[in-house]
């Protein structure tokens, strides 16, 4: 049996199919929305350098105080978390802490619970990386005598980890261990969380020396929602 197809119908059908495919593809690509924003703080600006007390041949006389970095009213190193939204596998990458110039680099980072912190040094001096839980319980304290050694410690529970060096007491760093979607604010306080599933969530901002009230945010597919946190120094 032979069927004669109307060329107009064929074109119409093909067009419809293409439209459906494109629409489906577009929806798949925009299944989540994004949250962008800024963490602001009413603060005059950054703090004076910290004077070193020991090991000045290696560390110098002073190092920058990174505990409250403000640029144009924006607060750096704030961790913004979407409560209840699971972090993607790659969030934050492998957490790393480098003792560099008698500072911890990075000063603030997020780490997924279940990941492994890699600790190393670039300084020709003895550093220790001493992690404390929020309740001041010591979690680990490893000695790193020289560059070229990498030491691992598990991040096995959620919470804030404060890091200090017991041989250079001005050194501090923070790790926020979480299972939630999170981002660290940049130098101007800006942050972005992409591909957040549609829904209404509580958005929280954490900073070692500042606080901001949590906010409700509603995310819709394919759209970006903008948030401003107004933080005050603790």
């Amino acid at each position: 049996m032979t069927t004669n197809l109307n060329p107009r119908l064929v074109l119409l059908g093909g067009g419809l199919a293409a439209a459906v495919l494109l629409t489906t593809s577009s929806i798949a690509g925009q299944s989540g929305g994004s949250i962008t924003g800024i963490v602001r703080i009413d603060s005059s600006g950054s703090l004076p350098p910290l004077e070193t007390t020991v090991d000045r041949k290696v560390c110098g006389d002073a190092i920058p105080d990174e505990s409250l970095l403000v640029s144009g009213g924006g607060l750096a190193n704030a961790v913004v978390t979407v409560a209840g939204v699971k972090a993607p596998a790659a969030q934050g990458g492998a957490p790393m802490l480098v003792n560099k110039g008698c500072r911890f680099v990075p000063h603030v980072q997020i780490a997924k619970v279940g990941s492994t912190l890699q600790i190393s040094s670039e300084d020709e001096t003895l550093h220790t990386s001493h992690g404390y839980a929020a309740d001041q319980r010591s979690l680990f304290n490893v000695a790193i005598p020289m560059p070229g050694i990498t030491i691992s410690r598990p991040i096995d529970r959620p919470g804030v980890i404060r890091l200090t060096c017991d041989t250079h007491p001005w050194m501090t760093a923070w790790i926020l261990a979480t299972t939630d979607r999170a981002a660290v604010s940049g130098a101007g306080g800006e942050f972005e969380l992409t591909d957040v599933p549609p829904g209404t969530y509580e958005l929280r901002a954490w900073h070692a020396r500042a606080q901001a009230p949590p906010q409700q945010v509603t995310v819709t597919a394919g759209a970006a929602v903008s948030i401003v946190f107004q933080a005050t120094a603790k």
Partner: protein
Amino acid sequence: MTPRAIVPVIAILSFASAARAQVSGSAGELFTRLCVRCHAEDGTGKVAVPTVKTEPMDFTDCRIATPEPDADWALVVAKGGPAAGLSSEMPAFGDALSAEQIAGLVSILRGYCKERGWPHGNLNFPRPVFTEKAFPENEVVVLPALSHGADRGAGFRLRSVYEKRVGRRAHWEAGLPLESPARAERELGVGDISLAAKYVIVDDAARTAIVTGGFEVAFPTGSEQRGLGSGTTVFEPYAAAGTIARNTYLQAQIKLELPARDTWDDRELVYNFYAGRDLAARPDGWTVGVELNGANRALAFTPQIRKGLTRTGALAASGGVRVPLTSRDTQQVRWVGYLLWEYLDPVRSRP
């Protein structure tokens, strides 16, 4: 901390990761680079600009530096202070240094005690239930014992002992027993209170051998009529010794019990031998052992197990059962044990 064998030092440190052993230098150079910052060049822990909140221990104080075995010191260097109940500001070097390097550091820090005559902590072996320890201690020990069998009723004894070191090599102790003997009529009361002293005669750290002489006197404070005491003063000279062979603790004691009344008729030769091993080289680890206990011709054996109850090892407990081998018509089965507290050591880890 709790005494343990020397040999497991290497085993303790075997966890160190592949990143270790990149640090080079002699033990002395490593000590200068890694330890002096906090512990000071002279080992006193007093530095011009301290960077830690907890003042490090004074290695030159022999009372502090001598009683614990090398294994405990190596454990702290490798795993950090909390591994043995000390400050968490003491970091773990086990990922960066080899076992040999850590042993070298331990050797240096132990050398800060310059006074002669202090017995080495490697001779401080775990306490058996019956065999007297040769090493002097600062401890409070509570020893319960429940006996039954031999066609008698059940008896109970709870003996508390306070021990205090005196000087470098001696120790004195006082014992207070609470007795409830196995008799038809139930009695409960204070038994014969004892006083004792001992002195380390030989201590050879290189050969891991220690010999102690002691003398105990039990006074007739317990009622003989109620079965709580012997009714006479008993003099008990003894010798105790200990060593390690193939990771096994070997301890022995021989004692003569001489009652003031009918001294030679009622004299008793008491002898105890103990062999035991650590299952884990940690202050809160398990130690299993067995004793052979004799009194004249009556023989018994006592399998036992001991465990440190805290990370510091300041609290420990032991339990076992003494089973008659001979003279079963007169010897009872005894469930025995102890709870000890090393009262100069921290019970809990510091933050």
